[in-house]
Each structure stands twice: as structure tokens, then as C-alpha cells.
């Protein structure tokens, strides 16, 4: 493959996109300008004016990141068993699960499977922000763990796209336990010499940041993502101080030494492939 062709590839789909209605505009939260929706979508959901990275669902993420049609999903039908029989404010968690499954087209807040990135085989986990804000309950912890076990047994690199509001309250301490479980399985994978690359996207907070998101060999973040332990609102309410500009962004984390690099969405594929090649034994 020619070097120039490789570096110019930016993930644009060459197929015509029929699903985008014509003449739709949206306001970009980055530059606060009205931008043409299809121009954003054809640009990997990145604002063509200011490079603001829009939040994308798991399906779109996989399309952008993996080689076309290579993602083989594992355990797509694993659903939450609602361990606490959780009810709140005249609602039921069970109903919320059903509603979010309908909304997102995904049975839970993570997709896992084998895939290829530029011809390199990996195990891939992608969190689904459209399902209870990508929060981690039993199923997310379990699928993540199975993905790491698979990567261990097949000696494959493991890439996890993090996008999550944190541990899922509706599953109480079961959710908290998943933080310990995912960290423990990563310890084993690490001992086995596995390469783990988490990609932190907007937002990565709470129990996900305080477990597997921060445990990579090489931690990548997309530009401008919100990444933190406590949510900015919680912090502002607790300490009653205005938060500094750029607080808890990818750039803030890079500055303070907690991530390795910030990579534009269009370069993620080539960067992951490059890292895999470097770490080949």
C-alpha cells in the first residue's frame, strides 16, 4: 500500500448517504455556528469548521473505526437481569431498559466483538451512549470482561472505545462490583502481555474512568472530550467554586499527565494500527 494513500484515508464513506434529510442544519456546540448536517455527517461527525467531535452511537463508531463489515459481534443479546428490581419515582428500570433498547437498537450499553483495523485483528469493545448514557451495570461489566478474556485466550490486542456516564445507579453495588471485575480481568490480560488501548470519547466519567478507562497501556482520547471522575456539576455544587475553562477536557488530562495522546477522529484507525505494529512481539 502506498504511504500517501494510507495517510490521506480519513474514513469518509464513499457510499451515497440516503438517510440524511436534505437541508437540515444544526448548531455546533464547539463554534456555535449553524453547520450543514450532512457536511458534519460526511466528516465523521466532526464539525468541518472547528473540529468539534460530535457524540456518535456504537454502530457509527464501529463503522468509523473497524474495517468495513469485519466486526463480528459477541453476546449481542445479553440483557440486564435487573438485579435490584429497581423502581424509582413511579418508573421501573425494566421499562427504561426496554425504551433505551428501542431507542438505541442495542440490547445494552456496550458492543463487543472481533474486528479488523487496517487489516490487524483485534478484540473491540464500543460503549453505546444512546443506552442509559453508556452506564456500566452487570452486562457492560460482563461483556467487557468476556472481551478481555477473548483477547487473552487468542492473544489479540484489545481496543475499548469508552463513552459512559459511569456506574449505573439502577444496579447499585452490582455496578460498583463491575469496576473491580473489569480491573481484575485487565490485570490478568496485562500479565499475559496483552496490548490494551482505551479510546476515551465524550463523555467518559465516574466508575468507568475510575476503572478500565484509565488502565490502558496507551490511553488515547478524542479532542475536547469530557473525561473525569466526578461530574462537573457535582464538583461545582460541592466546592462552590466556578470551574476553570477547559476543566476535565482531553486537553486538561493530557496537560496533567493522565492520557498519552489526543487523536482526531479521522486519524484513530491509523494510530491504533501503528501502535499495534509497534507492540508486536
Amino acid at each position, binding site marked *: 500500500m502506498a504511504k500517501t494513500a494510507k495517510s490521506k484515508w480519513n474514513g469518509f464513506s464513499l457510499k451515497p448517504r440516503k438517510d440524511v434529510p436534505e437541508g437540515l442544519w444544526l448548531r455546533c456546540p464547539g463554534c456555535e455556528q449553524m453547520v450543514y448536517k450532512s457536511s458534519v455527517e460526511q466528516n465523521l461527525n466532526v464539525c468541518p469548521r472547528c473540529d468539534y467531535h460530535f457524540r456518535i452511537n456504537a454502530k457509527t463508531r464501529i463503522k468509523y473505526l473497524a474495517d468495513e463489515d469485519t466486526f*463480528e*459481534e*459477541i*453476546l*449481542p*443479546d445479553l440483557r440486564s*437481569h435487573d*438485579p*435490584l428490581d429497581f*423502581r*424509582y*419515582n413511579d418508573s421501573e428500570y425494566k421499562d427504561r431498559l426496554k425504551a433505551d433498547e428501542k431507542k438505541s437498537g442495542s440490547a445494552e450499553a456496550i458492543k463487543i466483538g472481533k474486528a479488523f483495523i487496517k487489516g490487524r485483528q483485534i478484540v473491540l469493545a464500543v460503549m453505546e451512549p444512546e443506552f442509559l448514557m453508556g452506564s456500566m451495570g*452487570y452486562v457492560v*461489566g*460482563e461483556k467487557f*470482561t*468476556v472481551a478481555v*478474556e*477473548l483477547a487473552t*485466550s487468542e492473544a489479540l490486542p484489545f481496543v475499548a472505545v469508552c463513552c459512559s456516564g459511569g*456506574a*449505573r*445507579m439502577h*444496579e*447499585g*453495588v*452490582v*455496578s*460498583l*462490583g463491575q*469496576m*473491580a*471485575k473489569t*480491573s*481484575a480481568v*485487565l*490485570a*490478568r490480560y496485562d*500479565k499475559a502481555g496483552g496490548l490494551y488501548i482505551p479510546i476515551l470519547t465524550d463523555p467518559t466519567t*465516574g*466508575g468507568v474512568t*475510575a*476503572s*478500565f*478507562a*484509565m*488502565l490502558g497501556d496507551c490511553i488515547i482520547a478524542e479532542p475536547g472530550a469530557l473525561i*473525569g*471522575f*466526578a461530574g462537573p456539576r457535582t*464538583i461545582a455544587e*460541592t*466546592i462552590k467554586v466556578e*470551574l476553570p475553562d477547559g*476543566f*476535565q477536557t482531553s486537553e*486538561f488530562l493530557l496537560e*496533567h*499527565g*493522565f492520557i498519552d495522546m489526543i487523536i482526531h477522529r479521522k486519524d484513530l484507525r491509523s494510530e491504533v494500527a501503528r501502535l499495534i505494529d509497534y507492540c508486536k512481539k
Partner: protein
Amino acid sequence: MSNTKNNNTAAGDYLAFEGDVADIDRQINELTKLSSAKGIDYSAEIYALQKEQVAQLKQIYSNLSAWQTVQVARHPKRPLLDDYLNLMVNDFHELHGDRCFGNDRAMVAGLGSIGTEKVMIIGHRKGKSTKEKIACNFGCANPEGYRKAFAKMQFAAKYNIPIVTFIDTPGAHPGIEAEQRGQAQAIAVNLLEMSILPVPIICIVIGEGGSGGALGIGVGDRLAMLEFAYYSVISPEGCAAILWRDGSQAAQAADALKLTSKDLLKLGLIDSVIPEPLGGAHRNIHDTIDNVEKFAVRTLRELKRIGTENLLKMRYEKLRRLGEPIAVKLSRKTAPAKRRIKAAIETMGKKTKSSSAKTST
């Protein structure tokens, strides 16, 4: 003298649901005063009142709601880490600092012994006086606290000293500097490292088990809770503010979160419940700590008998199964992990193929 049972609860320390108990105490006090002032013997009446009070406490504390349990766990007179250090740890020598940034006073580490067992103690310090509380940030540790905890645990592991952690925190500190110094990363590293640390680790929630801040020193071979401690993914107030959009619905949230020792034991999320004396730990600190000591000594002996390799294997199995539905638990007994994954991949592979075939038609 007649009132030693309650010598730890001053008049202002009754919880809202203990009104009847407080009334009886007031009556007993009046009778005691009266008898000494007028020289009349009211001991029979006082004895009757005390008996009634015991019955009341039994009645109240055997039916505590989740929210009432949270209030007991937060009781201002509840025994704190320092009480345990004073009453159950011999020859405690505190070890300071994370060797990197500073010394977090919300997190305590040190060598000592429980019974005849040498241990490394790790625990949250909330502080007793207002001044102490502020210095200890009310038991909300910063990243350097979690890093100190890990540094001392590594030290213990090097010399094969078991670790006992005392969990009592509303949560890890949410603040600008905590984020700058990597609160999430510090906790994540502890979770990973504690899962493979080659010495026995016993974790005991003695008061508040606040989310990631508790878990950051809460991964080990055994997780126990005092009877009226709580352990939760989020504070009831925080949960209520989000899901009920009303922080005052904390009682409902506490109930829904299943955060009591009883519920968590039933769910298989903790290993043991350590009983508290009648009316909660704050009513009898000595008995409480005695119960914790007995549990710690017994468990230490039990874990020390297990070889390191087996210990780590069992610890991993325990973590691996956290939150598992009962159906999976049963199937696990019959199929080894590898086969299970393989089977899952095969069947799911078929399913995705058939579902993609469906969408293409």
C-alpha cells in the same frame, strides 16, 4: 451508673426515629434526679423503664429502613477508625505519605497487630472534632490518599503481611485538584493492583461505604459490613436528585439502592455481616469493636492457611462472579469458563448471521 448502656448517647444524639427511646431516657433521668434529691428509691421503676427501652430498641433496630440505616451509619457518635486503632490494634505505627505528592489525612495506613496477627491497616479517617474533620476532609480522600494506601499495601505484600481495610467514607473527594491529580486513575490502579496483591486482604465497611471512594480500598478476599453500615454506588441524596429530581426523596432512593448489609448479603455482594450491639454501634463501642476484632482474627487465620496461588485464584473467581445472575451461577458449575466463552461466541455468531440475513430481506 444505672444508665451505662447509654453512656455514649447524649440527649441530642437520638435519631428522629428513636423518639420513644429518648422519652424513656428522659423519664429515667428525672427519676434518678428525684431519687437522689428526695431520697426515695425508684430503682424498681427505673428497672422497668430500662426493660421497656431495651424492648423498644430491639423493635426499632430489627426493622430499620434503608434510610434509617444510613442515618445510623452516619451517627455522630458512631465509632470511627481511630476507635478501632485504639481499642483493637496493638502497637499501631502510622505510615505517612504517597512518596509523590503529599500525605492525605483522610486515608490512614500503618503497621500493627490484631490479636497476635501482624497486619497492615488501611482506612478512611473522618475526624472527631470539627477541626479534625476539616483536616481529614470528612473522610473524603484525594488521589494521594489512594496512592498512599497502595504504596503501603505493596510494602506489606513484600513482607507477607496481611491487609485489613476499614471503609468509612461518603465518597472520594470531588474537587478541581482531585481531578488534576487523577482521582479516577488512582482508584483504578488500586482496583487492578488489589486484585493481584499476593497477601490476604480483608475489607470491612464500618460506617459509610461511599461508591468508588470505598471501593478504592475495598477489593480483597473478604468483604464484610457492620450490621448498620451501608455500601452504595451513589449517595441516596445524589440518587434521589437524579432519578427523582428531588434530593429530599433520599429515603426512597436508599430503599431502591439496596444498600444495607442485609440486602447486600442476600444479593451475594458481600461475604459477611458483623453484628452490632443493641441500638447500633454508637451505643456500645466496645462490643462493636470486639465483634469486629473477632471477625478479623478468625478471617485472618482462615486466609493465612490458604497458599498464595490459591488465594489469588479464589479472589479472582470471586471478583469475576460479582453481580452474576443465579442462572449463570448454576451453569458455571457445569461448564468451565473457556468452554462457556467458546460456546457463547459460536451461538452468538450464528445469531448475528441470521439476524443480518433478516435485515437484508
